[in-house]
């Protein structure tokens, strides 16, 4: 025993000294020649914009991805990986919400809008060298419809996909659906290599494999995924596109401050997870630009118009709430001013937006009068929200203050995100906070989802709002191909839904992105929020 203790002590001393040296100085010599150029570091002032190789892009993201299968994922953050790794029949054109040819060089639609025929461009290949054919297009859509997860719902209008020839494919729809072309440019329109069936397990149509791998014909492919650490894209050797960026690392850095420091140090080129209040400080950095563009991402309040507090069934009460809000003060306090007040359901930047539509402004007297008319004095209502968005807490407090000015008491009910979704789906709330961003560039994404009474609950009509006239207008707008006529119908429906206020239309957020000055060629498309046009970018 004697010996044992003394030797334990000496050995612990030894370990101690080792640890102390590990903590204080670190084995710096072992790091030489690796990612970080530690030797002969230039002085702080002379620091280059990026310390990483010019053919490699480092993007800081905040969390790891779930599944990457285009037939399954509905998650915008997964799309930043899948979008550059797959191609679609049509693609969004530059900065606009219009589409341009992609895998399909041309297409035509029948008079009744029921058959869409696409002619494929030749020479596109999947990353294993297999050519992209009409067969692959059919396979992709059949697979999505068989898997029956989220994206299948978008494509439920497809009755049949027919292969006419190796370069021609026809979609037969069960009804006229004008936004169809636009849905093909969305992430779930990504064409999958039919060879995925070789990876099938227990009849899953390759879902398990595609959850962790990509099998598309885009300019890039996923080659490495260290869970919780990073995802790495490299070039698709068989793509006809020859991008400047050879490797893309999506580095998972959950902490905002850590991300900011790494951007400052030039270790990452793009930092996605930095909150607005820190962006002003970043603007002063010599090596960083903060891009600012209007987005189609809106933040709004669902006013439960049929299942919540009975007083809310009266449009006058909903209008009163709309008049109580000081919109400028709200965007200033929760978004540092990086937001624009909404005018109605369709945000600015998407066709169908009505510049002349009336807009609510704070008017306490008018709000009080409306409440009195409705006989809803001393109203007490609940506001449901979760911690899903960091700014919701501040927003809830601001709303509470605005409403108290018109004599409405607002109880704040903050609960877990998953639970809040369940309650919203069932209509168990008075007011609830929410955000929405469109999957495809068509006002259908707002008007039909938000107002059609067949979409009650999470599906989109989260206000449980029912108005026969509005139902008729949005359904008609979704069944004809004449764009001008559709726009007219949607504008009419907007005027009604602004007046009846089943939602409190708060603001559309700006898209803000701190980017190293060395990054060139990034084009922001509001339909592709958080998705990079990697093939055209360089450093």
């Amino acid at each position: 025993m004697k010996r044992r203790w003394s030797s334990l002590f000496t050995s612990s001393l030894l370990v101690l000294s080792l640890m102390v040296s590990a903590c204080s100085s670190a084995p710096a010599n072992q790091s030489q020649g690796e990612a970080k150029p530690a030797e002969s570091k230039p002085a702080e002032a002379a620091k280059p914009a990026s310390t990483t190789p010019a053919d490699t892009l480092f993007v800081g993201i905040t969390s790891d991805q779930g599944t990457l299968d285009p037939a399954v994922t509905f998650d915008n953050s997964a799309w930043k990986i899948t979008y550059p790794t797959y191609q679609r029949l049509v693609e969004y054109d530059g900065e606009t919400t219009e589409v341009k040819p992609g895998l399909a060089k041309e297409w035509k639609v029948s008079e009744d809008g029921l058959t869409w025929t696409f002619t494929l461009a030749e020479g596109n290949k999947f990353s294993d060298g297999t050519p992209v054919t009409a067969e692959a297009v059919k396979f992709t859509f059949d697979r999505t419809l068989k898997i029956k997860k989220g994206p299948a719902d978008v494509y439920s209008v497809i009755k049949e996909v027919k292969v006419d020839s190796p370069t021609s494919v026809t979609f037969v729809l069960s009804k006229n659906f004008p936004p169809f072309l636009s849905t093909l440019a969305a992430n779930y329109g990504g064409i999958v290599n039919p060879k995925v069936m070789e990876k099938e397990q227990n009849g899953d149509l390759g879902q398990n494999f595609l959850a962790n791998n990509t099998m598309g014909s885009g300019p890039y492919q996923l080659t490495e995924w260290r869970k919780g650490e990073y995802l790495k894209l490299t070039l698709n050797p068989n793509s006809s596109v020859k991008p400047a960026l050879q490797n893309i690392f999506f580095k998972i850095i959950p902490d905002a401050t850590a991300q900011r420091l790494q951007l400052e140090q030039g270790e990452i080129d793009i930092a996605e997870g930095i909150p607005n209040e820190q962006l002003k400080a970043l603007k002063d950095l010599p090596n960083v630009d903060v891009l600012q563009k209007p987005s189609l991402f809106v933040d709004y309040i669902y006013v439960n118009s049929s299942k919540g507090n009975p007083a809310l069934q009266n449009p006058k009460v909903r209008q009163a709430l709309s008049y109580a809000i000081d919109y400028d003060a709200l965007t200033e306090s929760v978004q540092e001013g990086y937001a624009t007040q909404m005018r109605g359901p369709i945000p600015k930047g998407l066709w169908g937006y009505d510049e002349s539509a009336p807009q609510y402004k704070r008017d306490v007297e008018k709000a009080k009068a409306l409440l009195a008319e409705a006989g809803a004095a001393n109203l007490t209502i609940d506001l449901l929200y979760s911690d899903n968005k960091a700014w919701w807490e501040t927003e809830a407090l601001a709303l509470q203050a605005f409403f108290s000015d018109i004599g409405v008491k607002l109880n704040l009910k903050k609960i877990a995100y998953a639970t809040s979704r369940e309650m919203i789906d069932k209509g168990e709330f008075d007011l609830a906070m929410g955000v929405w961003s469109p999957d495809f560039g068509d006002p259908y994404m707002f008007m039909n989802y938000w107002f059609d009474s067949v979409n009650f609950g999470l599906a989109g009509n989260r206000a449980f709002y029912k108005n026969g006239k509005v139902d008729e207008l949005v359904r008609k707008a979704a069944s004809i191909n004449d764009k001008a006529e559709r726009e007219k119908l949607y504008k009419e429906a907007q005027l009604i839904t602004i007046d009846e206020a089943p939602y409190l239309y708060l603001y559309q957020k700006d898209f803000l992105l701190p980017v190293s000055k060395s990054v060139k060629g990034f084009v922001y498309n509001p339909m592709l929020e958080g998705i990079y046009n990697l093939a055209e970018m360089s450093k």
Partner: protein
Amino acid sequence: MRQIITKRLSMLVLVLLGVTLITFFLSHVIPGDPARMMVGQRASEETLQEVRRQLGLDQPVWVQYFTYMQGLLAGDFGDSIRTQQPVVDDLIKFFPATLELALTAFIIAIVIGIPIGILSAVRKDTGWDHAGRFFSIAGISTPVFWSGLIGILIFYKFFDLLPSSGRIDLTVTPPPTITGLYLFDSLVTGNWSAFGNSLWHLALPACTLAFAQLAIVTRQVRASMLEVLGQEYIRTALANGIHGPVLLFRYALRNALIPTITVVGLSFGSLLGGAVVTETIFSWPGMGKYVVESIAFLDFPAIMGFTFVISFGYVIINLLVDLTYYALDPQIKE
């Protein structure tokens, strides 16, 4: 010895059974539908029902529990709803990272904490004692997200000595997985560049975590040492002319370590579960982040798997603590 182990192991089974039971029922009582989270908000009702059937969510909770336990006994933790991968695979991926971080922090806390504790006791009420106590109290009262960020600011931003995130450089290939502990695996395979690189990455997060745990060790060692030093047998030893290191280490420390082991053992359990914040700050790909994301997604199988592994670890540590007790003082029979 064998008796103790058998008895403890049977207790272990009971404890784990209790833990699974409580966690399972609690997590199923929370309103929220994981199937809905999985299929997305716009999937049709039919699809939703089908997924619920596939996941067995349409069964009564107790049926689900028995199905789950049946799988568990066969070593199957089910599939994660969020990542759609077997939970076992996810745990195998993330647990070693957390274990490596917690173990290193634990060793640092002990190796620094015990000498400080002894020093504080022996030099009671002197400058040494005050300094030691100040250091350890500073550690326990500074939130990890703060000390972690200060560490990053100093060692990453100003001196550029240590990396601020990850387990290993993106350009360095991790060692082949034997235990999943990078340090161990690279040592065994003689991969020195991976060893150095992962040690380099480990330094800051482990020291941050250790700093927060240090006070527990130093305070316990100091208190037990003071108590032991005041006892009669020490005075007897002193009267017999035994002083200095011999007295301190052979007579006093051994007795003082017994209560320390309990406290320190339990603190290791909390290190394992509590590394979440440290993992977030240092982008450490461990279980903490995995379980936080799983909770937000109501991913029951993942939450269950995490709880099971942590409670298993806790119970095993407890067993080890008891066995060490026994080794240190054979008079303790129970």
